[in-house]
């Protein structure tokens, strides 16, 4: 069994289609929807966790890609600046799924991107500003 958190961007054309039902029926996986919304532009964004045997989760992701849903794995939604991180652990207390944790041996903070649910609570908790969202990162670069 594996678990993958992912952000799905649905084009306008797919917003009325019950895609998650299709996923559950056809790929036989569990889906836990954490956030979902339709924007004023009528496209949709969903943040969900997919759980099931690796092959089935893979099939689900392929299926979504095939019908035009863009998938972002949340590790890519955070940018960690290793140079600024001092391994204090302030992020650890905010991280509900324990994607950030302290390695008991080395006492260093480790990030397990598979567990991240992209809630973003760690970002303001980091006083060293070592964690940045992709949105903020791009905005700063003037690319957005």
């Amino acid at each position, binding site marked *: 069994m594996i678990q993958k958190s992912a952000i799905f961007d649905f084009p306008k054309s797919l917003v009325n289609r019950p895609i998650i039902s299709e996923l559950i029926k056809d790929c036989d996986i569990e889906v836990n929807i954490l956030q979902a919304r339709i924007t004023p532009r009528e496209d949709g964004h969903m943040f969900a966790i997919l759980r099931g045997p690796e092959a089935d989760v893979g099939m689900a992701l392929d299926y979504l890609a095939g019908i035009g849903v863009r998938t972002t794995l949340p590790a890519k939604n955070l940018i960690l600046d290793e140079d600024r991180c001092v391994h204090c652990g302030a992020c650890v207390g905010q991280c509900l799924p324990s994607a950030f944790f302290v390695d008991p041996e080395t006492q260093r903070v480790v990030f397990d991107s598979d567990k991240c649910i992209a809630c973003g609570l760690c970002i303001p908790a980091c*006083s060293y500003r070592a964690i940045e969202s992709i949105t903020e990162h791009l905005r700063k670069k003037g690319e957005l």
Partner: protein
Amino acid sequence: MPKTYEEINERIRRKEVVVVTAEEMTEIVREKGAARAAEQIDVVTTGTFAPMCSSGALLNIGHTTPKMKIQKAWFNDVLAYCGVAAIDLYLGATELPEDDPCNKVFPGRFSYGGGHVIEELVRGKDVRLRAVAHGTDCYPRKTLETTINIRNINDAWLLNPRNCYQNYNVAVNTSTKRPLYTYMGTLLPELGNANYCSAGQLSPLLNDPWYRTIGIGTRIFLGGAPGHVFHHGTQHNPDVERTEGGVPRGGAGTVAVIGNLKQMSADFLRAVSITGYGVSLAVGVGIPIPILDEEMAKFTAVEDSEIFAPVVDYADDYPQQKGSPLCYVSYAELRSGAINVNGKKVKTASLSSYTKAREIAETLKGWIATGEFLLSRPVEPLPGGGAEQSNT
């Protein structure tokens, strides 16, 4: 046989000194006992790295032509205190730019302030300086706009009135309403998390609980360079309740420290932006402890399971100065990742970097082992300490 500072320094000079970190000392004492450890070990190094308010830089910028008696000055738009002398300016770590939105949009980000200017100075970056004065016959200049660099100003000292807190609160939030944005980090409601801030068994003053060897004049590691303890710190309070081993069960002793900022490194001096609170400076401090006798060996063998911190509610008790700690927990429990408060399992997080604390203790150990760094006997003990200085 007790050792003297002079004997230990002679061994450092001859590169024969036996120096270990406080973590290693715990193991050694456990294996060999305090008496044998005291015979074999000369120095134990400690370390801590955490946001430490009550830090700042004293900068003497050198005279301009014509000369100026500066009355108000801003480094990168952050106000410095100028009421010391003509060109002696004190830049506090927690000072904010005058146009900072602070908490107007709550919680504020506090992305820049005094701590950041200090970090940029240490990194060798140019910093904008703007100053105004009323002008006198001897100091006629009235305005100044220039850039300065740490390399070309007269003096740059890190001058911190209170660092190295001996133990500290564990902060929680019992309110049901909302997260609290405090200097102890973001505290989630309904005991959502517990934040603590001490290097515990590696922390300097917890390894010398009665300040027998740490006093005025003690030579230390400060921000990556040698520095000194120049006084007891503000709020120093040795009279806090203690364990049988003498370890305070809450914030107790503090030290005031000073060092040459020009020699320091951003690896051990880092600006922090504390959401909803403000800015500050994370400071790395390491203090060597001479193992004069068996008692010092025992003190430096202290471990996390023997150090207890009060769990304090920051929802109401802390700001209103009322109530009492919800409970006491050991640093071993805190470091395990969760503690029990009011029957609830609460996730813990450290604001103090144990990784950096280790790095500091190791670096200081290296300086001493290679004969670069000698110990200094305090010229005066801290209040409440130094009872046993007779054996030297």
